[in-house]
């Protein structure tokens, strides 16, 4: 293949833990197999790239933006990459919804500007100022595609990379993952064209749809936290008193956490049909209370700790309707 027709690929990470970048590297050691289709032109974490490497004449075809936006530098980076990139992808829960760093928005305390006074600012880099609020990528610039997850599961990540980078030559059109994506996305990938703008590389329904556990009548006696002992009976975790966010979370992961007895933490964000994940969880949990006495219910409710941090663990800046703010641009 002619080198000129290779797509230019970039990866940039804002505030986060680098697990998404490792997830890309870790796709069964497959990333190098993309080399006939792409040149990686910018990836500070892996290639040590600097902003100077992105001259005006270097365009980017596909850019994966990872991590939340918390500092002025990251905001600038998001704007710059949006200008340069043909396709900007919010990769991982932080970029997509604000992620764990987004829980900082719960604190009232304003972060003061971290001021440093370097004698020679060229040699000693200054610390970028911290914004008062953590934002998801889509709250700063327009985003073309979203790959949710903390980190995104390898099959979805690989499907997205193949679909966006290899296009019609992609081998993913034959893959099982593609068949599990919503119909409009999987059809586009199979046909070798780009999925509709704004597509989320994940399912449409809730995690419960792909969770392998046995769901019977839900009754809630006391809340159990994941570290506490419970009987592993293969039954729905919510039924047993664990706060599992499966009901208010988009599927696509295949229920991998619930399969091993860990309640869903909600890293795929909410499905389309849910207005507010917290409200959905309140509804789901309280409908499993058995008691008819107001006092008993009060006592049960007292046992729940940190509802906001649990229900909006990954989505506070963008999907909590009482704490999110509209998109800027």
């Amino acid at each position: 293949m002619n080198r000129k027709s290779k797509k230019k690929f970039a990866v940039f990470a804002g505030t986060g833990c680098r697990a998404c970048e490792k997830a890309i590297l870790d796709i069964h050691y497959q990333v190098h197999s993309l080399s006939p289709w792409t040149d990686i032109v910018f990836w500070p974490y892996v290639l040590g790239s600097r902003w100077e490497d992105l001259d005006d004449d270097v365009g980017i075809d596909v850019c994966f933006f990872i991590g939340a936006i918390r500092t002025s530098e990251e905001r600038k980076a998001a704007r710059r990459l949006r200008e340069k990139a043909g396709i900007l992808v919010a990769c991982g829960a932080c970029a997509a919804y604000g992620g764990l760093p987004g829980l900082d928005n719960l604190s009232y305390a304003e972060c003061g500007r971290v001021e440093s006074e370097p004698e020679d600012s060229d040699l000693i880099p200054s610390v970028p100022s911290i914004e008062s609020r953590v934002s998801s990528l889509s709250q700063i610039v327009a985003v073309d595609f979203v790959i949710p997850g903390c980190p995104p599961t390898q099959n979805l990540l690989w499907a997205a990379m193949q679909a966006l980078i290899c296009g019609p030559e992609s081998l993913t059109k034959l893959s099982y993952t593609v068949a599990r994506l919503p119909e409009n996305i999987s059809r586009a990938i199979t046909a070798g064209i780009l999925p509709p703008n704004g597509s989320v590389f994940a399912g449409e329904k809730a995690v419960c749809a792909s969770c392998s556990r046995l769901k019977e009548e839900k009754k809630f006696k006391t809340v159990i936290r994941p570290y506490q002992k419970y009987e592993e009976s293969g039954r729905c975790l919510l039924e047993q008193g664990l706060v599992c966010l499966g009901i208010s979370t988009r599927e696509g992961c295949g229920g991998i956490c619930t399969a091993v007895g860990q309640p869903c933490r909600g890293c795929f964000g909410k499905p389309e049909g849910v207005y507010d994940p917290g409200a959905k969880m309140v509804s789901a949990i309280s409908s499993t209370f058995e008691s008819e006495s107001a006092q008993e219910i009060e006592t049960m409710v007292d046992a729940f700790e940190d509802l906001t941090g649990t229900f909006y663990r990954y989505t506070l800046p963008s999907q909590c309707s009482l704490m999110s703010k509209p998109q800027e641009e």
Partner: protein
Amino acid sequence: MSAFEPKIITFLCNWCSYVAADAAGVSRFMQQTNVRVIRVFCSGMVDPSYVIKAFDGGADGVLVGGCFPGDCHYISGNIKAMRRAPLLAKLLNELGVEKERFRLEWIAASDSALYARVVNEMCDTIRRLGPFTMRRKAG
């Protein structure tokens, strides 16, 4: 006198509280005019997202009215509302909604005086609290 007039959304059940609200007007009980009534078939159908959406849309308070426990037209709809309310109130509280802004009340069809009293009480309390401002940090 402050210029602030609260907006209160009330979800009233078709069989008891809405009838009480209707009768409160007919009986000429004095009521403050800050409430916007939404008639629902049962307090049990008021999903927590309706309440959150009301606050998101600019309401300063939300009142859910249902039949007394045991009186529900659909047998146990109001019990469902009762189970939901404490957890929802706790979540709202964490999100910065004061607990006075969300109330669940049992108002029987014949008790229009109670309806008028609850509405007036709630209007006064919320007027004192001031407008509901979200904890959204400035961007």
